C-alpha cells in the first residue's frame, strides 16, 4: 500500500520536474539577444529540414483530404438540394479545423520525430557535449534554430495545406460532380470570413507549431542517450504532441468560435 502511494507520488514529482525542466529549457534556448549573422544560416538550414522537406506529405494529404471532404459533403448535401454549399463546407472545415489540426499531426509525426531522433543521436554520440567543451552553448546553437524553424514552418505548411485542400475540393466538386463553378466559389467567399476563419486558423497553427516543436526538441534533449532511450523519446514526442494538439484545438475552438 505504502509502496503504491510512493510510486504515485514519485510519478507526480517526476512529471512536475519534467514540466519544470522543459520550461527552463525553453527559456534558456530562446531568451537573450540573437546573433543574426551566425544564427541565420542555421535557421535557414532547419527551415529547409522541417518545412521544405515536409511539403510532400502536407501537399498530398491536403489534396486528398480536400477531395474526400468535397465528395462526402456533396453526397450529404445533394439530398437537401444544397450541393452548391459544398464549397463553403470544404473551406470552413479546412480553414477552421482540419487544416491546422491535420497539418500539425502530420508535422508531429514527420518533423517532430525526426527532430527528436536527430537531437537524441547527437546527444548519444556526444556531439552535444563536445559543443559545450568547445565553448558553444548547445541550447543556442542546436536547439534554438530548430525551435524557431518549427514555429515558422508549421503555420506556413498549414496555409499551403488549406489552399491545396480547397483546390482539391474544387476539382472534385466542380470538375467531377458538376457543381456550378460560380456558386461554388461565391458561396465559399460569402461564408468564409478572413478574420474569423482564416486568421483564427492561422493563430491555431502558430500555437500548434509552438507546442509540437517544443515537445520534440525537449524530448530529444532530455532523453537517455541509448538506443532504447532514443526510441522511447521519439514515441513520446509523437504521442504527446498529438494529444497536446488535439487538446489545445478544443480549447482554442471554444475560445474562438464558442460564444453561443
Amino acid at each position, binding site marked *: 500500500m505504502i509502496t503504491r502511494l510512493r510510486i504515485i507520488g514519485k510519478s507526480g514529482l517526476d512529471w512536475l520536474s519534467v514540466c519544470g525542466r522543459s520550461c527552463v529549457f525553453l527559456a534558456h534556448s530562446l531568451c537573450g539577444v540573437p546573433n543574426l549573422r551566425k544564427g541565420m544560416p542555421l535557421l535557414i538550414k532547419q*527551415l529547409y529540414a522541417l*518545412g521544405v522537406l515536409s511539403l510532400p506529405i502536407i501537399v498530398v494529404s491536403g489534396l486528398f483530404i480536400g477531395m474526400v471532404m468535397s465528395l462526402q459533403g456533396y453526397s450529404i448535401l445533394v439530398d437537401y438540394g444544397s450541393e452548391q454549399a459544398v464549397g463553403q463546407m470544404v*473551406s470552413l472545415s479546412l480553414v477552421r479545423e482540419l487544416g491546422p489540426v491535420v497539418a500539425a499531426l502530420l508535422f508531429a509525426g514527420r518533423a517532430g520525430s525526426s527532430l527528436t531522433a536527430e537531437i537524441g543521436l547527437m546527444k548519444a554520440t556526444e556531439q552535444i557535449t563536445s559543443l559545450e567543451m568547445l565553448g558553444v552553448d548547445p541550447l543556442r546553437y542546436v536547439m534554438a534554430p530548430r525551435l524557431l524553424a518549427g514555429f515558422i514552418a508549421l503555420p*506556413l505548411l498549414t496555409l*499551403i495545406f488549406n489552399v491545396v485542400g480547397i483546390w482539391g475540393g474544387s476539382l472534385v466538386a466542380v470538375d467531377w460532380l458538376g457543381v456550378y463553378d460560380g456558386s461554388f466559389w461565391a458561396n465559399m*467567399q460569402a461564408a468564409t470570413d478572413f478574420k474569423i476563419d482564416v486568421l483564427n486558423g492561422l493563430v491555431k497553427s502558430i500555437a500548434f507549431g509552438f507546442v509540437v516543436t517544443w515537445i520534440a526538441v525537449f524530448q530529444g534533449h532530455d532523453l537517455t542517450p541509448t538506443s532504447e532511450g532514443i526510441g522511447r523519446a521519439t514515441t513520446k514526442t509523437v504521442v504527446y504532441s498529438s494529444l497536446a494538439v488535439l487538446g489545445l484545438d478544443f480549447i482554442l475552438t471554444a475560445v474562438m468560435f464558442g460564444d453561443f
Partner: protein
Amino acid sequence: MHSKTLEVTVGLFMLAGLASLVVLALNVSGLTLSQSKQSYTVFASFENIGGLTARSKVTVAGVGVGRVVGITLDKDEFAGIVEMAIEEEYNQFTTDTTAAILTAGLLGEKYIGLISGADDEFLAEGDMIVDTQSALVLEELIGQFLFNKVNE
C-alpha cells in the same frame, strides 16, 4: 547541400506559404481590398425576425446593398427592431419601402430584401421602415395549412 540552393528553396517555401495566405484571403474568404464604404443607418420593425442575425445581408432585387448591424427588442410593442447599415450610394429608398425577411435556399440563412415604393421622400439616417413582412415561421405555416384543411 549547397547553401545557395538551400536558401533559394527555403525562400520559395516561405513565398509559397505567404502566397497561400493571400489566396485564402482573396479567393476563399472574399476579402475586398476596397475601403469600407460609408453607410447610413435605417431601422425596421418586425413581428418575428426568425433566424436573422447580425451581419446578415440586406439586398434589393437580390443585390447586396448593406448589412444588418444589430437586433434589439422594442419593449413597448414587443417587436424586433433591426438596425441596418446601408451603403451611402444607395440612398434612394422611398419612405414607403417594404422590408421582408427571406431565406436563401431551403437551409440557407436569413436575409433582408427591400422593395422600394412610390413616395416622394427618401429614407434618411435613422429612419424606420414600418411596412415589413416577418420571417416565415414553420409552425405558423403548418397551423395555417391545417386550419385551411379543416375548413374545407
